[in-house]
């Protein structure tokens, strides 16, 4: 039973940790480590939640989660109805998470294939920017379509007009960093989770936080070979050029102070111009802690208690 109690503790702890991490600011000083920590927390939360349900169900066998579930399939009658219900809930939850993740991946793959096909038909290359496609549209847009075989960086004609040559080069470096580091794969599980639980505030905020970290990681990469100021002004010029129509029924951000505090663009610009990376030993400690978080539920699955 101790194992189950610990799993419940890990599930609650990782949810609480995620809650704290959505408000954390130190993560901006080491985006890559923070992304890894998010992945570890997500994995720990899923494994521990499933493990708690399964562990409670099969506790009477006294063989731990894995041993207990195996025994459950040969000898289910030894358990009371409430224990059986717990095992069933655990298995259902696990299968649901896996199925939803697969469905989300399939959806993404389909959306991307359509996007790629359309790009092949209407976007054109530019001899001065190999590997980059141009869309003839006056609005500003820059993004990447990831993929194993032929990842593409796409910019609109509006972007080319808006940005100076150095700013454009900085933006392209930023986008190529997304492609190289497969940030799409980083985002995929979090996007899927939000599809499964669209109402859960914590998951939406998690996705926002991870997206911001991914952008920061790409910013850091783009800054390696050129002045950070180029990317900073590109970011400001680019974002300021594309105000979204405020959706009906929502209020704009009240007051400049609040907006300045909450604007992801300004947050990114500030850390570009005044970087303060976390010291290496601290980063190492964070990595070790994240690894432990990810592995802990698996250990608890195995111990026969």
């Amino acid at each position: 039973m101790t194992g189950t109690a610990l799993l419940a503790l890990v599930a609650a702890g990782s949810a609480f940790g995620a809650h704290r991490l959505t408000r954390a600011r130190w993560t901006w000083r080491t985006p890559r480590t923070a992304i890894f920590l998010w992945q570890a927390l997500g994995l720990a939360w899923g494994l521990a939640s499933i493990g708690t349900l399964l562990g409670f169900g099969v506790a009477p066998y006294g063989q731990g989660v894995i041993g207990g579930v195996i025994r459950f399939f040969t000898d289910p009658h030894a358990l009371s109805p409430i224990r059986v219900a717990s095992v069933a809930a655990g298995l259902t939850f696990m299968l649901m998470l896996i199925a939803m993740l697969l469905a989300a991946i399939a959806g993404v793959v389909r959306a991307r294939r359509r996007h790629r096909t359309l790009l092949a038909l209407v976007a054109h290359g530019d001899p001065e920017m190999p590997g980059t496609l141009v869309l003839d549209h006056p609005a500003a847009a820059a993004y990447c379509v990831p993929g194993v075989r032929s990842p593409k960086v796409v910019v609109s004609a509006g972007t080319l007009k808006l940005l100076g040559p150095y700013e454009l080069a900085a933006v392209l470096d930023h986008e190529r960093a997304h492609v190289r580091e497969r940030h799409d794969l980083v985002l995929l599980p979090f996007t899927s989770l939000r599809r499964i639980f669209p109402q859960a505030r914590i998951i939406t905020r998690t996705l926002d936080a991870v997206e911001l970290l991914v952008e920061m990681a790409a910013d850091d990469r783009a800054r390696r070979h050129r002045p950070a100021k180029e990317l900073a002004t590109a970011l400001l010029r680019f974002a300021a050029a594309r105000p979204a129509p405020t959706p009906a029924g929502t209020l704009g951000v009240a007051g400049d102070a609040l907006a300045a505090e909450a604007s992801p663009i300004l947050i990114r610009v500030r850390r570009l111009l005044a970087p303060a990376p976390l010291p290496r030993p601290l980063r190492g400690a964070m990595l070790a802690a994240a690894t432990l978080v990810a592995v802990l539920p698996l250990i608890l699955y195995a111990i026969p208690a």
Partner: protein
Amino acid sequence: MHSVKGLGELERTVMEVLWDRDNGATAREVGRALADDRDLAHTTVMTVLDRLAKKGFLVREREGRAWRYRPVATKEAYVAELMLGALNMTGDRDAALAHFARSVSGDEADLLRRALDEVEGT
């Protein structure tokens, strides 16, 4: 046989021909329109048109013994569809694309313009 890239390029060229015409075209007309640029076998043109129709970019109707092909949507409509996705206005994050920057509110845009002036002034 063309390589995959060659085929994609060909599809694009064929779509351009059809987008330029009000009334669509038959395989023979497409082949004739492209004859100046490149010498294509009639069967190649037919294959490309058939592929594009299967992908949903063209509709076709009988004209005597041949098919007449028409684009389903204008080029501008497809560009607009891509841009909506790129501007993240489709409401979801379906393709999980990483955007350089999301759309911002009007207030935030003012703020960013002021910040830009500051940064450029330094």
